[in-house]
């Protein structure tokens, strides 16, 4: 059986966005986004412009999964942070439970600042996500409860 779906309510989504917005400001980052370890983008904040955040989310998750695999081979549980520094743009990824906090920054910021600010919001995001994972689904009308075969067929017409 597949995992239980993640259901993100409107209020929770805005709470996450608010945390990301503050982190982005405090760390002078270009873009901040939160990704699930499976590669699903949860929320994004910042100068997205032409940035393909969907692909970036998937690749960030692949990157963390691959380095996590390396960590285990050398007897570590995982590598909690990853940084990639480019000539102008850089990426910092923090692993927070099953979430990845991805910060894209340029020369307006520094790796040290991004690391510090990411660490400061990690707990807050973990708590928020725990709440999301534990909240029941009873108050939500599933958009799929009454989905018909015609609805599904129409997607492919």
């Amino acid at each position, binding site marked *: 059986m597949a995992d239980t779906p993640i259901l*993100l309510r409107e209020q929770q*989504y805005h709470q996450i966005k608010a945390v990301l917005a503050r982190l982005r400001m405090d760390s002078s980052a270009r873009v901040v986004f939160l990704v*699930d*370890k499976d590669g699903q983008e*949860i929320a994004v904040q910042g100068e997205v412009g032409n940035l393909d955040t*969907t692909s970036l989310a998937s*690749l960030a998750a692949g990157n963390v999964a691959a380095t996590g695999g390396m960590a285990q081979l050398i007897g570590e549980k995982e590598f909690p942070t990853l940084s990639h520094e480019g000539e102008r743009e850089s990426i910092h990824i923090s692993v927070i439970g099953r979430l990845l906090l991805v910060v894209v920054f340029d020369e307006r910021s520094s790796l040290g600042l991004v690391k510090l600010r990411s660490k400061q919001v990690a707990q807050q995001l973990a708590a928020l996500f725990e709440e999301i994972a534990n909240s029941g689904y009873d108050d939500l009308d599933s958009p799929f*409860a*009454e989905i018909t075969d015609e609805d599904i067929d129409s*997607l492919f017409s």
Partner: protein
Amino acid sequence: MTFINYASREINCKIVYYGPGLCGKTTNLQYIFDSTAPQAKGKLISLATETDRTLFFDFMPLELGTVRGFKTRFHLYTVPGQVFYDASRKLILKGVDGIVFVADSQEERIDANIESLYNLEENLKAQGYDLMKLPYVLQLNKRDLPNIIPAQDLAGELQKKGEPVVEAVASNGTGVFDTLKAVAKQVLTELRKG
């Protein structure tokens, strides 16, 4: 893992194409990519070696349309087929919502198909999944080649649980969308069950 965002009214699901090396997983994705309207797709990311063998994965987001007011997006992944990339294959199965097994219909690839299918079951088990309970489609690819096993025999050999079997020639698109539709339908039907 399915992700439903009530704020942006989006739903994302993950489909993985699995199968032995050179069976046509990437070709399936490439065909979907080439025949989809630009606004419905993202980039096709292919992490391949210089000789076009998939190294880590191929990825493409595909937006199918709206169901009950929710934008429905499928994230399509392929795994590297070659035996020695098993670590990457395991990682990509994480959070999977539906699987397509692409079998190579050529006689000489029967053992590779069986080995890969066994490997799929093992890797799913390692992630805590059971193939018997996941949305699943069997695609018999390369039906245009001369030295192929009759579809019925091949399906008899590889079919696991009465899953839909689609005959395909991924290089010209035959059966590619039928396969995607068959797996997407099962994933959405799973969601209906809740």
